[in-house]
């Protein structure tokens, strides 16, 4: 598989603060690469280094098998990006933003192409409106249009769902999936929400305090056989006793805040619920969580009382 991004021993120091420390990772062609970490973990600093906004203190970045320092313009011509919030020219219209910024990326686009991309992000009816009249969600979508207009091979999106409503989040998710599946684009997407990333990424990197914690495929890291299930029933004590005497006894982990916690293959969850119902236990709620989520939370929120899971 072709490597698109190769980062080796990347470090960035701001005076006494080390924002990124010895970070190494690779992104392959066609990947939707999830870049996870809590706020301040070093995600944006890393992304800014990938886009040459920040100079690394040490380490190397190679994109499309070319050194980023010596082939900057060539690489950026094939890259589209949104960094944090998409700040566009508020005093220009959506049309003008897309057309001019596309030109700067090396591609002159026709009015029809501009309208097509605006249609794709649901802004065709506001093409001639000034950006200052847009909501945050609309600006986010316009930012995506600007990132895609010059048909880049690599798309880097830093927190692309920030400020979007639930429908906007779902649309962005679909868009990212389509870019990878239907158009063969490589997408790097950062977020502080695992739940967001796990729905779209095929590979994940978690960083914390500027250091790599774990990297791998979503399949490996989000192993469905290790799904955590939290069940709240009409009688949790009785339910737990019944479960301990059943075929589910090895799955039961503990009672936490009056709930029963089990670790099991997610495919068995319907059988578990059927079993409890047949034993006259009413199900009030059943919530699933991956072992990685526990792990992620234990790293990023040390105060929470969650045991790290084994990955």
């Amino acid at each position, binding site marked *: 598989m072709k490597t698109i991004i190769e980062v080796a021993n990347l470090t960035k120091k701001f005076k006494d603060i080390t924002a990124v420390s010895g970070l190494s990772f690779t992104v392959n062609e066609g990947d939707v690469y999830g870049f996870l970490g809590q706020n301040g973990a070093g995600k944006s600093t890393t992304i800014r280094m990938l*886009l040459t906004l*920040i*100079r690394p203190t040490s380490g190397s970045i190679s994109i499309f098998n070319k050194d980023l320092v010596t082939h900057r313009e060539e690489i950026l011509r094939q890259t589209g990006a949104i960094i944090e919030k998409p700040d566009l020219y*508020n005093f220009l219209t959506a049309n003008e933003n897309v057309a001019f910024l596309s030109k700067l*990326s090396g591609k002159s686009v026709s009015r029809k192409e501009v309208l097509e991309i605006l249609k794709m992000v649901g802004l065709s009816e506001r093409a001639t409106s000034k950006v200052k009249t847009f909501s945050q969600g609309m600006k986010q979508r316009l930012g995506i249009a600007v990132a895609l207009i010059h048909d880049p091979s690599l798309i880097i999106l830093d927190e692309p769902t920030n400020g979007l409503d639930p429908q906007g989040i779902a649309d962005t998710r679909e868009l990212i999936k389509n870019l990878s599946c239907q158009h063969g684009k490589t997408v790097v997407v950062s977020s502080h929400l695992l739940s967001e990333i796990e729905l779209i990424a095929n590979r994940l990197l978690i960083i914390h305090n500027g250091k790599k914690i774990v990297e791998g495929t979503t399949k490996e890291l989000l192993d469905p056989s290790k799904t955590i299930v939290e069940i709240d029933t009409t009688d949790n004590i009785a339910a737990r006793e019944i479960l301990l005497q059943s075929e589910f006894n090895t799955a039961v982990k503990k009672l936490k805040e009056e709930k029963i916690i089990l670790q099991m293959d997610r495919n068995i969850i319907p059988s578990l619920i059927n079993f409890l119902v047949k034993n006259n236990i009413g199900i009030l709620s059943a919530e699933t969580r991956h072992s990685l989520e526990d792990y992620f939370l234990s790293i990023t929120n040390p105060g929470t009382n969650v045991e790290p899971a084994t990955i």
Partner: protein
Amino acid sequence: MWNLLQFELFKTFKKPRTYIAFAAIAAIVFLIQVALLINGKEYVQFILSSVDETLIIPYAKVTNGYWVCFVILNLLLIHVPILVALVSGDIIAGEANAGTLRLLLTKPVSRTKLMIVKFTACVIYTLILLIWMAFLALLVSILLFGTNDLVVAKEFELVQIEKADILWRYFAAFGFAAVALVVVAALSFFLSSISGNSIGPIVATVSIIIVLTILSEMRIPIYDNTVKPYIFTTHMLGWKGFFYISSNTDGQTIPGSISNLPAILKSLFILIAYIIIFTGSAIFIFSRKDILS
């Protein structure tokens, strides 16, 4: 490069603040012209009150379009730098503050090229502003007041330039003023490159100009030879040199002559050196800067 420059100019002239300077110049020139149209004679009498008794001054001839333009330039060329800073102080810092700088820098354009283009946009804006001023101050004044010989005061003497020998001097003076104003644009451009918001560079430019102009105008020996020859504000008024004409031994003015051309060229050289220093420093600093906005 052309795409980038086109975009810079498009952005600059889409902002309402760009037109503040044009409106301000139009208002000031209009006010001066109206005042001189009504009270021109009294104004000349006031200026020449010390020689009024010894010379017969044809006031109607003196208050012509060329003279009005000279008065306007004297009053305006000190204040126009403030208007120049409105755009050039904002051109980088404004984008850093709005977050669009990082958007621009993720495009395949080198930082040096971006800076050259931004500075070129500042220069174009400055030149257009100056052309606007020339149009209002010279052309409109000629239309309103007509033309005649120009009488200007030089230190303790009066210089009379023949009507046919004036227009080229104005073109040369405006050319010189363009270089002087580009120095101001370069200064605020430099300050803009090291700032995160546009108010700072604009206020800093205006403050520097005020302090240095006061220093240039002060007639105190300690500054005369040590500081004044090196500060750019001293040389910004070098355009007046084009209106100081040479005389022969009989005291007759020589048409087409300039009494101290080397001084004008020296001032021009110093101003250009300032432009290179400010712009070069801005490009050097910016190309190594981490974009954190």
